[in-house]
């Protein structure tokens, strides 16, 4: 889901595995010398054609997966891609997390829904390279032509004689061969895929039903201690003084000491650390601390002040103009039938079920780190920079993540864990309580959008303008000296693309279009939250399309189809998902009174259309009954994975539509746990129907896709059911209760 213009996020990811050059190191690992060394080690022969594969003499195949597993399925789609070209039985494959050695593994990170797209070609080459070497080894052994041999189900077969050699039997001879150039191997045609495109069970599921899966917070090493940090509740506030005497007498508490804030890429708040024998004792110790804070620069900030600010910024000249096609402003000022709308969505928390945590052991000459992270190499880099140790002396274990949704894209909690552990010299697990997690997140930006559209005398939509206002991700955390400045906002092609991506109305055909952007200052830390700007731009854009359709007396589905009428591959693809969504969701069929359907769509990368069907309860709350989602993501590598991601993303976003909101008072977050940040529960979860469009195009991401269209689809359904236009999320039940009575 990374747009072309989103250079910074992309550059930041540095997921350069699309280029063959990035793979050279990893592909050159399995040299003859190494293989022989391995052979003489006495524990059986291992064929290592490259850094991602090990094949042992007893036919065990181990795949080293670079991408962290956050629930998105990296430990399944990666081996699927490799197995496809390697020609092995799925059950023979074992999966391990690749070690954090960025000089070899350059994809130890995931984000922007890019995991599948970035690995699709490189990981198939990993399998194909090994396959070619195994075939060569067999052909040599049989003294036959390579062309007479084929790979099949974990063995090489000599066609004319039907002789077979298992991969395990070839591990030794293959290790003696020179490396095959991965860029010169032939990859399968999609029509011949055996694994890719089939709904395979996830490799990690068995360990997730019996408690054996080890998440970051489950790390247990000998002599370890547990820690929590008391942080200033006000953003930017600092420790003035503290008294730890009463904390130290809590049974199990071992140490109490201050930790300074770290003004880093992702800053840490600083505070007072309490280290104890157990997590519980550390929490009790923290409760006993006497703390005094300097309030810092943000103590006057509140949700009300932000609301005022974003409205002001929407009316003032923009920070910059993003797109100006034709002359939207002039046309809208002229003799047109004008429609205007505004849309607002507040801060949102990630609220992963596993709170932030990291375990660190600082030894004399090296540091070992166990972190649930979306970004293993950055965790390593951060601790290398903080500790001044060489990279190879900072060992980072990328642990299973109990959800992420963008939160584990920051590594502040790993830096904090190092701050605590370096004072202790024993392994220490820093745990964030749920309250810490809720109140010290990096939140989805607060945003406000103002839109205008104009119809000419013939009823043709001729002009559209959008102003996007956000508390930008770029420029976040300025108060602690974070180096990225608001200057970055002056370059819309780079960092600022994060703020408005998805607000471009393309591929709708509207001759005059203007998109501009204004920033609003805030002390609240912000960052990526599942689908980033697309968590709010489609809300405004697709609701406004709905408004325009109604203003012109047309059906919202047909109105969209008309705006996409002419021929272009992009429009055809979008029309196809819209059409299928409308048909599957019984668009146009009558519904009982009080129910409504809403539709929304998006193009670019993966294409999607969604129809939501809702009813309004007597108390004004919205019940989402059914969501139909059509997904065109190119090849669906694991269709069941695509379905699972889509179901999950839709329900994740519903939290922000129905109930979730982070509010600010006196420069601090008001919510603290799941009683006041209300995330979606099972009784609110609709039936989600996912339709995957068959495709032979290269795959695109789906981790965020489902989340983008739920806000407008539901809000448009509310309008259809009640005639009330939702202007702000989450939907205020009072608004709809009034409409019912």
């Amino acid at each position, binding site marked *: 889901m990374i747009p072309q213009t989103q250079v910074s996020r992309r550059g930041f990811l540095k997921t350069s595995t699309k280029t063959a050059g990035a793979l050279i190191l990893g592909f050159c690992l399995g040299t003859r010398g190494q293989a022989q060394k391995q052979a003489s080690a006495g524990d059986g022969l291992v064929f290592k054609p490259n850094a991602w594969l090990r094949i042992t003499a007893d036919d065990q195949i181990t795949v080293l997966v670079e991408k962290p597993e956050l629930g998105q399925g990296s430990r399944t789609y990666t081996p699927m891609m490799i197995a496809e070209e390697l020609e092995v039985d799925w059950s023979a494959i074992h999966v391990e997390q690749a070690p954090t050695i960025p000089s070899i593994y350059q994809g130890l990170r995931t984000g922007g829904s890019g995991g599948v797209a970035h690995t699709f070609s490189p990981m198939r080459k990993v399998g194909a390279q090994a396959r070619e070497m195994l075939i060569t080894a067999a052909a040599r052994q049989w003294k036959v032509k390579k062309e007479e041999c084929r790979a099949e189900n974990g063995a090489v077969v000599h066609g004319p004689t039907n002789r077979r050699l298992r991969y395990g039997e070839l591990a030794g001879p293959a290790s003696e061969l020179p490396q095959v150039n991965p860029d010169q191997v032939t990859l399968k045609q999609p029509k011949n895929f055996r694994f890719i495109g089939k709904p395979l069970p996830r490799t990690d599921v068995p360990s997730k039903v019996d*408690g*054996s899966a*080890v998440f970051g917070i489950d790390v247990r090493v000998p002599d370890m201690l547990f820690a929590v940090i008391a942080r200033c509740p006000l953003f930017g506030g600092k420790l003035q003084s503290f008294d730890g005497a009463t904390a130290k007498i809590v049974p199990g508490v071992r140490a109490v000491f201050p930790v300074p804030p770290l003004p880093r890429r992702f800053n840490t708040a600083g505070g007072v650390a309490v280290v104890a024998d157990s997590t519980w004792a550390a929490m009790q110790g923290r409760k006993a601390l006497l703390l005094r804070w300097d309030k810092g620069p943000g103590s006057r900030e509140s949700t009300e002040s932000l609301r005022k600010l974003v409205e002001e910024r929407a009316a003032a000249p923009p920070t910059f103009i993003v797109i100006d096609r034709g002359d939207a402003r002039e046309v809208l000022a002229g003799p047109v039938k004008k429609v205007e709308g505004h849309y607002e969505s507040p801060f949102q928390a990630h609220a992963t079920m596993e*709170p932030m945590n990291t375990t660190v052991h600082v030894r004399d000459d090296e540091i070992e780190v166990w972190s649930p992270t979306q970004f293993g190499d950055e965790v390593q880099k951060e601790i290398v920079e903080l500790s001044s140790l060489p990279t190879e002396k900072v060992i980072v274990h990328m642990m299973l993540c109990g959800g*992420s949704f963008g939160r584990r894209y920051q590594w502040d909690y790993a830096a904090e864990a190092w701050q605590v552990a370096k004072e202790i010299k024993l392994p220490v697990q820093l745990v964030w309580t749920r309250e810490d997690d809720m109140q010290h997140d990096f939140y989805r930006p607060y945003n406000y959008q103002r839109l205008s559209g104009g119809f000419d005398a013939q009823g043709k939509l001729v002009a559209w303008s959008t102003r996007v206002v956000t508390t930008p991700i770029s420029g976040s955390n300025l108060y602690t000296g974070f180096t990225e400045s608001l200057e970055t906002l002056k370059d819309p092609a780079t960092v600022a693309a994060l703020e408005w991506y998805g607000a471009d109305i393309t591929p709708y055909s509207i001759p005059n279009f203007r998109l501009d952007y204004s920033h609003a200052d805030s002390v609240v830390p912000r960052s990526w939250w599942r689908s980033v700007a697309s968590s709010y731009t489609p809300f405004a854009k697709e609701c406004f399309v709905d408004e325009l359709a109604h203003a012109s007396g047309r059906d919202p589905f047909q109105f969209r189809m008309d705006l996409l009428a002419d021929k272009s591959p992009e429009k055809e693809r979008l029309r196809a998902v819209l059409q299928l969504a409308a048909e599957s969701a019984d668009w146009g069929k009558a519904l009982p009174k009080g129910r409504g359907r809403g539709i929304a769509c998006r193009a670019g990368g993966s294409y999607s259309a969604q129809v939501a069907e809702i009813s309004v309860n007597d108390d004004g709350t919205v019940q989402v009954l059914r969501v139909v989602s059509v997904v065109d993501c190119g090849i669906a590598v694991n269709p069941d994975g695509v379905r699972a991601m889509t179901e999950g993303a839709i329900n994740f976003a519903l939290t922000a539509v129905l109930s979730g909101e982070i509010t600010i008072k006196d420069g601090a977050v008001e919510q603290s746990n799941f009683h006041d940040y209300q995330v979606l529960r099972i009784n609110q979860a609709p039936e989600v129907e996912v339709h995957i469009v068959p495709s032979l195009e290269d795959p695109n991401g789906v981790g965020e896709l489902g989340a983008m269209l739920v806000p407008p689809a539901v809000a448009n359904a509310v309008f259809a059911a009640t005639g009330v236009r939702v202007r702000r999320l989450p939907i205020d039940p009072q608004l709809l209760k009034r409409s019912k009575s």
Partner: protein
Amino acid sequence: MTSLAITVNDKLYRIEVPPETPLLWVLRDTLGLTGTKYGCGMGLCGACTVHLDGESRRSCQTPVSSVGAKKITTIEGLSRDRSHPVQRAWIAEQVPQCGYCQSGQIMQAAAFLASTPHPTREQIDEAMNGNICRCATYQRIRRAIQRASGQNGR
């Protein structure tokens, strides 16, 4: 510190902890049974669900001294080989994504099905409403519970 004896997954443990320590932290930090998860510490999310004499209980809200002679079952003890019908259904329906909440979901579902072998969808929603899944695997949870109860999951 108090000396206590508790039975977890049919094994007797002698522990020395402050008596008010929640069972959750005894399981995780004292006994190293990390399958039971911390999610909220307030009984709001269900990630810490275990069985006490077969009934579901939020271990973060259960002082270890209150357990007495009741038998504690955690996810590690639900079956020896993932053979409990709920575990089998969870695999068949491919429920977990990140998987963090699933120990609690499975323990809640297992206790629920023991008392309500053939639940309706409404009963499932009611019984599972205290268990948050942020990956929002809810629709697969419903199907898996129906499957485990012998009803067609789809």
